[in-house]
């Protein structure tokens, strides 16, 4: 299996441990990922707030690059990229005039896009292409004793529920179980983490993150698993501020790919776990057990 790979800005910046863990884990499973040459920012939510048509043009350049690269499908691990690329595909499909503008802009760059590059999330590929049986075969250190709160965040299932249920997604739950961990019941699995509000307006933004951290602890979890770089940043980076405002809710938040790597026998360092603010002694101990 070979896919085009769109990392997005976060996976090269503050969310680099996502890429550091995802690439070796997928390699171990025989999934090849070829990075798009000279990809650009997807536009994210902020760009759409300024100019939606230009946001579509930005995203379309990446879709056109993927089409030129020639692999059948494009992988986008960041939830915002995943949503924006898919949303752009919808706009291109639904609106002839958006298609017209985008087509003209692409022409200026000697690019074209026919509309036929599916954008998929790595979790989708893991469950529906690789299969959990293949994942299980590679588990050398089952995550015994690890109680995981599966946190999907918002944009992976909303507004388009492409590969999982909109209200009660379970793909991440099943992956964690395949790795030997136990899943706690977590009704807030798709609640908003606050997004970029944590940086702009601490009170509303951090409250969103605080609620999720507190609930995970209340449900008996000792780690939160996520699949979005912004969720990871919000739930991991603001503990001192949250503690000062409310109370300490210390629980690590890691990417699903990092849990996979640990279960496959890769080291914490290889999985980029040293880059996180809240370290996980419990995970290390239980993984070795």
């Amino acid at each position: 299996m070979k896919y085009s790979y769109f990392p997005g800005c976060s996976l090269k910046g503050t969310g680099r441990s996502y890429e550091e863990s995802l690439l070796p884990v997928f390699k171990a499973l025989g999934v090849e990922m070829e990075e798009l040459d000279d990809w650009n920012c997807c536009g994210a939510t902020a760009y759409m707030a300024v100019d939606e048509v230009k946001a579509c043009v930005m995203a379309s350049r990446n879709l056109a690059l993927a089409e030129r690269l020639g692999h059948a499908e494009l992988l986008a691990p960041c939830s915002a990229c995943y949503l924006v690329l898919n949303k752009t595909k919808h706009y291109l499909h639904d609106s002839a005039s958006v298609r017209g503008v985008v087509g003209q802009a692409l022409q200026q760059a000697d690019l074209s896009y026919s509309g036929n590059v599916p954008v998929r999330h790595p979790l989708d590929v893991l469950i529906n292409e690789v299969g959990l049986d293949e994942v299980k075969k590679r588990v050398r250190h089952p995550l015994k004793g690890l109680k995981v709160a599966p946190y999907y965040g918002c944009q992976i299932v909303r507004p388009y529920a492409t590969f999982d249920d909109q209200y009660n997604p379970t793909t991440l739950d099943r992956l964690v179980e395949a790795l030997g961990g136990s899943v706690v019941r977590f009704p807030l699995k798709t609640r908003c983490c606050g997004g970029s509000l944590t940086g702009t307006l601490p009170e509303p933004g951090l409250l969103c993150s605080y609620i999720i951290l507190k609930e995970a602890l209340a449900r008996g979890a000792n780690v939160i698993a996520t699949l979005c770089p912004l969720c990871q940043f919000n739930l991991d980076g603001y503990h001192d501020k949250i503690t000062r405002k409310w109370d300490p809710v210390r629980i690590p938040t890691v990417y699903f790919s990092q849990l996979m790597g640990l279960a496959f026998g890769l080291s914490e360092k290889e999985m980029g776990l040293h880059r996180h603010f809240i370290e996980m002694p419990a995970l290390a101990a239980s993984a070795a057990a």
Partner: protein
Amino acid sequence: MDLPRTIKYEADRVAGFGKEVMSVPGCENLQSCIQCGTCSGVCPLSIYMDYSPRQVMALTRSDFKNEVLRSHTIWLCASCYACTVECPRQIRITDIMYELKQRAIHDGIYPKKFPIPVLAKEFYKMAHKQGRVTDNWLATWMFLKTNWRAALGMWRLGLGLIKRGRFSFTYDSIRQKDQLARMMQTVDNLSIDALTDAKPKRKASH
């Protein structure tokens, strides 16, 4: 003492505004809003909003342009799409919020010194110029432009990111910046009015 009038007069409306918003692709269903309030109920940020999402829908449809474009509500929307998937009338509320944000920025009437629109504009500028966004620099610029004291409050986080190798000291950028610039220039050069359903005409209600 400054006493704002809390009840709006019909004369405060900007005729045609609602129709204009509803003509944008994705915003059409606003017409069929039944004011049930589901959007306000599921919104995780509505407890901080000056107008609830339900009220923003009603105000927009009834041409209260100035009220919605100056509201905090549109900027507090974190785009989690909870309202959009719950709406019994299939109104794409999140996309309507985006449409209102674009208009507020275009008209320059968003709440000044409010960091969220500033972040959106800085993000736009950086993505435009570099082709990519370096998140830690984006945050730094936003703080310097809105509230530099808040930037001081972030030093610990910044230091933590540096220590953990998550801070980028240089701007990330694409190689073919000129190509991207040409593409954006093409969009600018296209007559906006020719794009009947791609782009709202911004002049009608000024």
